[in-house]
């Protein structure tokens, strides 16, 4: 589903954001991408949607060879990926409903179907009551749900969630993560960037760790679960 082969990214400033990263994410997996600030997590996401080009290596998402993708096909790739941005990236002068239906309109969906799907995802993430409000009128958690709803509306096969629980209280964070788990159970591949250690430990999912642009950890769900149990015993 997602494959990175010896991917490096050097910014024009000379800083290496990623060095020789290789990893595979299979269809239906739930993967946490962890690491300190500046470790290259968001850079990987930006490479996956061709917002950036790598300095070296190759990237595949579904059947797309992302690096060699012609410019006019980039929108097609992006429509196949649901993206929850770290800074949400909602249009402030449009209502929540308009923000979400925008993805459907961009995908040339029929108006009726678009309205139906938008209504469904709003219901699914629990903010249907706020559909006519503007982003500024919503709380942080509600905004995160709106961003999640937008990433879901085109029923993508993969969702990239960049710190979807950042700046949220624990209860709201769990609500968001539980929704992602529900979506994952239906077969959607999810890659989630997070700093929330508690969520990572409790969910026992695969964890990929980055530090200074290098892959420093790739633990399977079983080893994460085992380590969590050991930590609890030590306590």
């Amino acid at each position, binding site marked *: 589903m997602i494959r990175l082969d010896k991917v490096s990214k050097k910014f024009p400033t000379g800083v290496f954001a990623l060095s020789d990263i290789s990893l595979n994410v299979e269809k239906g997996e739930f993967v946490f991408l962890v690491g300190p600030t500046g470790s290259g997590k968001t850079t990987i996401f930006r490479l996956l*949607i061709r*917002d950036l080009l790598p300095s070296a290596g190759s990237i595949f998402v579904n059947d797309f060879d992302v690096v060699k993708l012609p410019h*006019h096909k980039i*929108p*097609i*790739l*992006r*429509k196949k990926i649901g*993206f929850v*941005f770290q800074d949400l*990236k*909602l*249009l402030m*002068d449009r209502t929540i409903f308009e923000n979400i239906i*925008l*993805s459907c*309109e*961009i*995908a040339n969906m029929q108006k009726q179907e678009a309205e139906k799907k938008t209504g469904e995802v709003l219901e699914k993430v629990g903010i249907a009551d706020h559909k006519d409000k503007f982003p500024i009128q919503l709380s942080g958690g509600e905004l995160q749900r709106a961003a999640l709803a*937008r990433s879901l509306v085109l029923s993508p096969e993969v969702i990239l969630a960049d710190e979807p629980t950042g700046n949220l209280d624990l209860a709201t964070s769990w609500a968001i993560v539980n929704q992602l788990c529900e979506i994952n159970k239906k077969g959607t591949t999810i890659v989630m960037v997070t700093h929330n250690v508690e969520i990572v430990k409790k969910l026992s999912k695969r964890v990929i760790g980055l530090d200074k642009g290098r892959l420093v950890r790739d633990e399977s769900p079983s080893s994460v679960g085992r380590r969590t149990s050991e930590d609890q015993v030590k306590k």
Partner: protein
Amino acid sequence: MVLRTTWHNIRRSPYQAFTAVFIILQTFFVVSVFAFVVFGSTKIIEYFESLPQIDVFFRNEARKDEINTLKTQLMKSGKIANIRFVSKEEALKIYQEQNKDDPLLLELVTADILPASFHISAVNINDLSAVADSLNKSPIVERVVFPKQVVSKLIEWTDALRKVGLVLVIVLGLDSVLIMIIIIGIKVSHKRQDIEIMRLIGATNWYIRWPFILEGILYGALGGVLGWGVAVGVLWYTTPYLSSFLRDIPVFPIPSIFILQALGVEILLAVVLGATSSFLAVIRYLK
């Protein structure tokens, strides 16, 4: 959706929208006035060209048979399209008609003191000089009035007017394009963040460009129609004054079909101007 986004963009910055429409209004006001002036001046020239081009006044002693001989000679030359003879009596009638409000002038003049005349039209305006020269040599001719210079002066002025009008339209057209590029460019810059978001969620370049191009088309069409409307209003208001000034010259009323054709052409030009300007702006600012 595109229309909704366009309307949204216009509502968000009404002053910019007003400026864009106003500058196009000015351009198409001048275009309309220019079209009416071209129409009017063409009619004026046609009128003068259709008038007898040479007036020949005969001496009092000229006999009827001498006049007829001269007429035959002129017609045989092949250069003359038409000759109309005006007798002394007819000349008096014309004089009386022209001065019917001034009894003093009517009392002083009789048919005897008015000369008989020919009103001659040439086939080719370039032959007028030669015809006038040959008539001047005739012993029965008192005077030849040759209004060619009036027509050529009129054509000169009209040509100059058309050139000035054309330059004015081109300069205003360029002004409109540049101002529209700046206005749409500012709008694109204001929407930079939204455009970035749309791109990240899969919008194509054309999906992003269309609302701006449509906005330019709307400004163009609205400015074009308003510019035309103002010019027609001015024309309607000034028609009585111009009609009395031009008297017999049949310029007014300007036919409705011409005015409507001008509207159609201007809308088309305005739409092309608006679309081109906004397209250039989005190409420039959406790099």
